[in-house]
């Protein structure tokens, strides 16, 4: 088991390094002089050369990369935001927790609603309940999150005036964004849970469980649910990065000062260092979630972590 975890961690590290190099190289892939990009569009021409040395852009690529990486890991130094004139980390420091809070809450609420619904649909397949849920999900997946956010805003913030339009002060600010996020993610989780539960219900070991004399409730919980959870949990971890990137739009619409909003603004204002830092953080988070989900998968499913032994063939 330990070997499995270490192996996953190792691969994750390698992946992180590769991706970090990709993100680092963004600076050089973009059209234009790296100095201008880093310094921002308002830089004066005569300062370019001195800035180039200051940013260390005259050094070889690998040296720059290592330097960049070490600065980030050990000093949390992502550079300076040209627009706000402060170091990028302080911007991130404030916005990351906000985004994380929102996404994690959304994920939990979404799971709490979707998983039982999916299981019920599987158990009551082809009944009215199932058909209504499936068709509703089908429509829900067609609704883009930005439009949903706008419509919710229209109904609840403007017409009914129940919730504020934007900002981030009280819990009332959270309701609409989280609702948008939850509704957006429900459909796919319900469908996945249902499909997985159906597969498990069809398995012969469920018949064996009944044949042993176990009652329905025990079979459903100990055998069906436990086995369905494997896929469901993996899906949970994998949804987090997807959710974070989806939240970019929601934060923008509701004016929430999270990482997504920061990133979009920085793209528009060409504040390169901030964009680069955001991308790096989100990507690192994604890889971490991948690793975590693999580890949890190893815990939940013995087939993954144990190799088949010989036996008395």
């Amino acid at each position, binding site marked *: 088991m330990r070997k499995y975890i270490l192996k996953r961690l190792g691969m994750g590290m390698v992946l992180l390094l590769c991706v970090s190099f990709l993100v680092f190289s963004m600076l050089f892939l973009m059209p234009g002089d790296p100095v201008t990009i880093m310094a921002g569009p308002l830089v004066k021409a005569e300062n370019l050369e001195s800035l180039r040395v200051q940013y260390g852009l005259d050094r070889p690529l690998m040296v720059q990369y290592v330097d960049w990486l070490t600065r980030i890991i050990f000093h949390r130094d992502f550079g300076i935001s040209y627009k706000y004139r402060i170091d990028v980390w302080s911007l991130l420091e404030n916005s990351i927790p906000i985004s994380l809070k929102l996404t994690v809450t959304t994920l939990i609420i979404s799971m709490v609603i979707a998983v039982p619904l999916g299981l019920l649909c599987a158990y009551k397949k082809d009944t009215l309940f199932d058909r209504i849920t499936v068709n509703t999900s089908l429509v829900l997946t067609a609704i883009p999150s930005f439009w949903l956010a706008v419509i919710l805003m229209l109904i609840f913030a403007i017409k009914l005036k129940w919730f504020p339009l934007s900002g981030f002060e009280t819990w009332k600010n959270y309701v609409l964004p989280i609702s948008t996020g939850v509704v957006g993610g429900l459909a796919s989780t319900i469908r996945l849970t249902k499909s997985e539960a159906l597969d498990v219900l069809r398995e012969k070991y469920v018949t064996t469980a009944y*044949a*042993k*004399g176990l*009652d329905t409730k025990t079979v459903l919980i100990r055998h069906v649910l436990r*086995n369905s959870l494997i896929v469901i949990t993996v899906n949970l971890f994998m949804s987090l990065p997807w959710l974070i990137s989806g939240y970019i739009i929601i934060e923008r619409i509701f004016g929430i000062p999270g990482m997504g909003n920061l990133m979009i603004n920085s793209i528009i204002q060409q504040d390169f260092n901030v964009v680069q830092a955001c991308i790096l953080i989100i990507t690192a988070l994604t890889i971490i979630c991948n690793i975590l989900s693999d580890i949890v998968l190893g815990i*939940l499913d013995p087939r993954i972590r*144990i190799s*088949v032994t010989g*036996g008395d063939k």
Partner: protein
Amino acid sequence: MSEELLRLKNLYVDYKVKDGYLSAVKNVSFTIEKGEIYAIVGESGCGKSTIAHTILRLLPDHNEIIKGNIFFNGEDINKFTEKQLESIRGKEIGMIFQNPLDSLNPVYTTGFQVAEGIMLDNVTKEEAWNRVIKLYNDVKMSDAEKRAESFPHELSGGMRQRVMIAMMLARTPKLLIADEPTTALDVTIEAQILNIIKKLRDDFGTSVMLITHNFGLVAEVADRVAVMYAGEVVEQGTVYDIFDNPKHPYTKLLIKALPRITKTEGRLQTIDGTVPRLTEIIPGCRFENRCPYAMDICKEKDPEIKTVNKFHSYRCHLHEGGEI
């Protein structure tokens, strides 16, 4: 002095399918006595597996129509509620399945899965685990402790089937239903499993309902046999009756189709045609389209059951005589 343990009386099982109802089992009646091995033999799709699953109401789709009586120890378990059936499953009647890998849950150890059933009888965890080890030894599983703590995919096919047997014998049922228990295993393992089944009958007096399409197995192990075709029992009798004195054309053809060692037998006999699709209610005998003796009456009238002796009967219009 044998007594009746299980008696099926006029059992019908229909599946609901897209274009109507599929008649999987039609008017099946037979009796299994205590301490005997009763084989049900027939080709794939003849309904034998359906009967096995129906007895414990383990059919997966929940959209079947079951008519008739299933008497177990005198009570009609077909009329039992789900709760009542739960008390029979595992305790009075056990069932092992064809493919032991699929039939075991991959996320729990084999020991846990066997103990799970034992603990239904209000046994402590430690005691249950001890019983598991003892059971594994009884079914000649090497290295019982290690196997109990292993997961199903870590064991070989033969070992897994032993786990299944241990699991279903754990509460000493009176009847063990074995649905093609050795089909997925290789021949040497098959011999060992068969020995275990024989031991059950000899040492413990457990009855076994052996479902198979392998006539060779039947010859080796069974006391009495029922031959099924297209959902009906076409002939039943002791194993000697069936092999030495088969009456129904299908049985005769099956026995003829068994490969023999002598060269003089000639080419292997096959049976032409295919099993009819059973959604339409066809009058007459279901074997008619493949039967070398088919007469006009076979198309129109359902054959009655003719009795040869106390145990031996068959369902055909033919009287004595009729050679191949």
